[in-house]
């Protein structure tokens, strides 16, 4: 451990500004998560331009706080209205809403909060212990190994991001293509610009992420609203009396009684979170399913706090580990990790294993922020959850136009370039079409980020091997192993239809629940 760097990190984090932005991040995140239809990715995409105006720790505090808050926040509307704020919290509906109907909404939300924070903290500790060792190992990799590692990450993302292998890989292909627009990363020669001089610098990351994650979602929701207002169907929801003063709280003994379910959530969430492509929804349903099978006497699915503990521990335990591939290899393993990686890049720090030696203070600051984010989540969740439950009632008719305006501001504020706004709108439509035909967005954004690195490493490997493609691609045993693994992942996913099976985990529970 580099003591000086750790001291620097403490000095960076324990400033009013950083702590302020961390609390603001969690505060916004829980609220965002509590609003059905808004996800952590949407929030981070919208906040990315704002992070430019902050220093590195402030930006990390804002984005990581928002991420942690949003993953927990999703459970609030899941428990209050049986409408998960995000797919990550869908498994919480089964037990959470039943408890709310029994007048135990407060107990359900507190179980979700405590199990989320417990699992998040435990998985963060695993990240802090494991990431530096993996990064140390990754430092030994040459361009060939790094190239194949990226191919493995793209393959995993493409194959596991949805139930349709071809669509996941198609999304990765679109990202790879968009990532090559503009000057090539080695010789700086313009290509793929369609004769447009404004494309010479390539597609900027901010309009891409805002367009793909935020604008596309708002177009989708706007369309839903237009349909709803035409058919005259309005869902009236009320949080009144759900969490009245008489509502039962959660005792310490009850919290402790969930240790097995939380343990399952921590194990599953940490493992799933570290793998590129899977994410919190799969972790949540997997840990819920395992707990239900393992402890039938706890009547999970019939309004049990143990079901909530398993699901919420499962999704929150992915938050820290999702950063492991980013920090250890410089390859984001999820859309949110890609956005946090983008924030680092925009702050002038390239995520890579070398970050541990070049920017050790930032790494330690990030670790401290991960832990502090949990404390902020606990405090804000405890104090405001019951108010946030009402936030889920803010009508989409108000939210959608406001978020559309925020998306425009975000795309414009990043560089002050009007073409970024039009680019964001165009990409928003592309994202909307992708949603409509079931093409996942995450592989696109991650491959877009990886594309220049992929080309750099390929060309470096070729230079080292004097233009010999065989040597550049298969010059080391590890490179061959990683290439074989990528092929194996593709074959196994195709043969066993793994993506489809993972997608069905949630659907099966839905059907059982009726």
């Amino acid at each position: 451990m580099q003591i000086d760097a750790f001291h620097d990190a403490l000095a960076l984090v324990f400033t009013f500004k950083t702590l302020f932005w961390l609390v603001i991040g969690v505060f916004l995140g829980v609220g965002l998560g509590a609003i059905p239809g808004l996800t952590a990715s949407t929030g981070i995409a919208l906040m990315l331009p704002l992070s430019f105006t902050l220093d590195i720790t402030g930006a990390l505090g804002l984005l990581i706080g928002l991420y942690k808050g949003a993953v927990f926040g999703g459970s609030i509307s899941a428990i209050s209205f049986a409408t998960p704020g995000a797919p990550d919290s869908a498994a919480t509906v089964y037990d959470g809403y039943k408890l709310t109907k029994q007048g135990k909404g407060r107990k359900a939300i507190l179980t979700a909060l405590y199990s989320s924070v417990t699992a998040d903290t435990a998985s963060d500790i695993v990240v802090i212990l494991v990431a530096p060792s993996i990064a140390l190992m990754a430092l030994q990799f040459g361009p060939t190994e790094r190239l194949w590692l990226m191919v493995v990450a793209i393959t995993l993302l493409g194959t596991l991001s949805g139930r349709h292998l071809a669509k996941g890989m198609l999304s990765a292909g679109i990202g790879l293509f968009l990532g090559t627009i503009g000057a090539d990363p080695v010789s700086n020669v313009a290509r793929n610009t369609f004769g447009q001089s404004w494309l010479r610098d390539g597609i900027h990351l901010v309009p891409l992420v805002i367009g793909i994650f935020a604008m596309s979602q708002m177009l989708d929701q706007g369309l839903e609203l237009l349909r709803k207002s035409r058919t005259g169907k309005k869902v009236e929801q009320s949080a009144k009396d759900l969490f009245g003063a008489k509502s039962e709280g959660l005792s310490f003994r009850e919290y402790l009684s969930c240790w097995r379910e939380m343990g399952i959530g921590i194990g599953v969430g940490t493992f799933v979170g570290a793998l590129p492509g899977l994410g919190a929804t799969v972790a949540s349903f997997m840990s819920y399913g395992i707990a239900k099978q393992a402890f039938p006497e706890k009547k999970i699915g019939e309004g049990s706090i143990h079901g909530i503990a398993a699901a919420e521990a499962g999704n929150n335990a992915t938050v820290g580990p999702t950063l492991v591939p980013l920090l250890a290899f410089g390859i984001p393993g999820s859309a949110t990790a890609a956005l946090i990686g983008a924030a680092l890049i925009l702050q002038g720090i390239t995520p890579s294993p070398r970050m541990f030696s070049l920017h050790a203070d930032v790494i330690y600051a990030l670790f401290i922020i991960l832990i502090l984010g949990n404390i902020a989540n606990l405090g804000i969740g405890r104090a405001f959850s019951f108010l946030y439950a009402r936030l889920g009632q803010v009508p989409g008719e108000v939210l959608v136009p406001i978020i559309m305006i925020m998306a425009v501001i975000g795309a414009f504020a990043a560089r002050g370039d009007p073409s970024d706004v039009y680019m964001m709108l165009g990409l928003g439509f592309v994202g909307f079409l992708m949603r409509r035909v079931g093409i996942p967005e995450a592989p696109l954004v991650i491959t877009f980020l990886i594309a220049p690195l992929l080309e750099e490493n390929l060309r470096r490997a070729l230079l080292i091997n004097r233009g010999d493609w065989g040597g550049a691609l298969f010059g080391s045993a590890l490179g061959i192993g990683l290439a074989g693994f990528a092929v194996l992942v593709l074959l196994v996913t195709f043969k066993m239809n793994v993506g489809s099976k993972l997608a069905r985990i949630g659907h099966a529970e839905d059907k059982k629940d009726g």
Partner: protein
Amino acid sequence: MSNWWRSNQAIGLYLLVMIGALFAYIWLQPWAHRVMRDGFLLGMMPMMGVGLMLLCAAAMLVDPLRREMPETLADARISDAWLPLVMLAGIALCFWAMSRLGFVLAAPPFLLAFMLWFGLRPVRLAVILAVVVPAVVYAFFTTLGVRLPRGILAGFL
């Protein structure tokens, strides 16, 4: 057969045609075949990207899920294609107005129009929100040091 046009196979076919045209366009560009000093083909990575897309679109024609219809397309209507374009045109118009009139003047009509279009009632609430929200957003971003377009009010704000 009536719903075939919504199936994965049909989507694969549309994509195959579009991506095929894109591949042909790139192939015909002189830069795509330019050899760089390190011996690398300048068009290789773009063609790899389009090639991967082409392969995946072709796979959608024949893979086991080809007859399935994406859930989101099950009740799709023609308006699903043009309504988002109208929304985007409205946002683009708002941004165009923003760069001339300024954020504070251009955002309220946009918000009001979209809130009413999406079905927010009563109208009075939409008017209040359309005025208050841009003012708050402007104040928030200005405090953070982010300059939003000020347009004709540049002298006052």
